[in-house]
């Protein structure tokens, strides 16, 4: 089984490794450059958090409003829905009307949820 696995995914794995190298190699080069020629000079002001030229006050712990979370819920549900839709879509050309209607019902169920949330005002960003 491993052979199939390797055959399919080896290019992807090598691409990923190459991509990591691609990303890290300039950082390494930059590091070498800084060691060799241009020393890094950290300092209390230089490494302080940027805040429009003022001294940073307060921690950057932003308490977000629950809207973000509501959107995330709707997103999650529709993401999962997409997981079910994808195999259906692949098989769609060979499916009967009945199966398609089954999917339509599935969709309508979710649309119902969407309409409900819409009416609840969840989809309205405040």
């Amino acid at each position, binding site marked *: 089984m491993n052979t199939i696995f390797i055959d399919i995914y080896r290019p992807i794995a090598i691409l990923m490794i190459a991509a990591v190298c691609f990303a890290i190699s300039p950082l390494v080069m930059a590091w070498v450059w800084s060691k060799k020629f241009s020393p890094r000079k950290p300092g*209390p*002001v230089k490494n302080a958090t940027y*805040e*429009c*030229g*003022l*001294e940073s*006050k*307060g921690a950057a712990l*932003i*308490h*977000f*409003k629950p*809207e973000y979370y509501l959107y995330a819920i709707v997103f999650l549900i529709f993401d999962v829905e997409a997981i079910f839709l994808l195999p259906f879509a692949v098989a769609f050309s060979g499916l009967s009307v009945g199966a398609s209607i089954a999917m339509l019902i599935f969709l309508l169920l979710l649309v119902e949820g969407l309409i409900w949330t819409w009416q609840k005002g969840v989809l309205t960003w*405040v």
Partner: protein
Amino acid sequence: MEMIAPEDQRTAQSAATAKSEDALLDISLGPHHPSTHGVFRMDVVLDGERVVKLKPVFGYLHRNHEKIAESVSYLASMPYTDRLDYMCSLTNNWAYALTVEKLAGIQVPERAEYIRVITAELTRLQNHASTIGFLMQEMGASGTPLMYAFREREIILDLFESLTGSRMMSNYMRFGGCRVDLPYGWLKQTEKVVAEFPRFLDEFERLLSSNEILLARTQGVGVLSKKLAIQGGITGPMLRASGVNYDIRKVDKYGIYDRFDFRVPIGEHGDVYDRFMIRLLEMRESLKILTQALRDITAGPIMDTKTKIRGFRPKAGEAYGRIESPKGELGFFLISDGSPQPYRYRVRPPSLINLTVLEDMCLGASVADTVVIFGTVDIVLGEVDR
């Protein structure tokens, strides 16, 4: 390194106590921020992305203009007025010259008045164009409208430079007239510019004024009610966008504005879109004035011959003079004690006073809106802080 001012500490503390309740974020936009027109700073308290409190912080460009002016002669203040609202130095010149003329009772020759009107309206054109450009920049339009606006501004600046010698800091007007006469061919060139300017306005309107994103970003945002506008002493296009018909060119009829036929566009909603459109419409009206002024300008002297340039000493007394600068009512208040320097020299800066209602307009808006609303106030820091 401790740099938090006591007032900041107070707000920090109050915000901290509020935070435990409602989890607010206080963030400062500026003094170094891409869209605060320089070094303005807004201390904003955010609830999510909604503004619940906004305190403008001034003084990052407080250049002591008034103090310096009180120690130099009347004439020497003239180049300093250029640097007040550095986008429109010619109207500043005019306001100052007008006030000194009031203070000393000087008459201005007719040709000079025409020149003043022409330069002031050109100034208004370039100021409004770049204001709209900057506003679009603040809406994130990658510079294109700003570039178009500055393309036109450069054409007008060429006129200014060929007349006054400098692109921005004209130092052109004098008590009782203007410094130099129009150079040869200037009027013709100006006529050409005025004739071609509507093309730019049309382009701008096609580019922007029906753009859905712009409509969505501006309509219903930053509404300023008529009542609050009057209360807060708002002037200029911002006031008129809120539905108040008050244009000092019409009210005071200073200079020779009563000779021209032009209209004052009035907004209804007082939102960002109105302020944007009022400026566009005002530019068209300015073009009308310019056409008339260029047609009617008379020959004659440009300086009142009785006025001395050096050793100018008005009688003791005081005068307040004001004009409709592109940003609003620009006033100068001078107290003379008979010496060559003004005893008190005060600028009534439209930019500063238009900011009075900034918080009221921004409450409940998002950060993005705040920046845009701030953009429509059209301030120049040199004038705000002086």
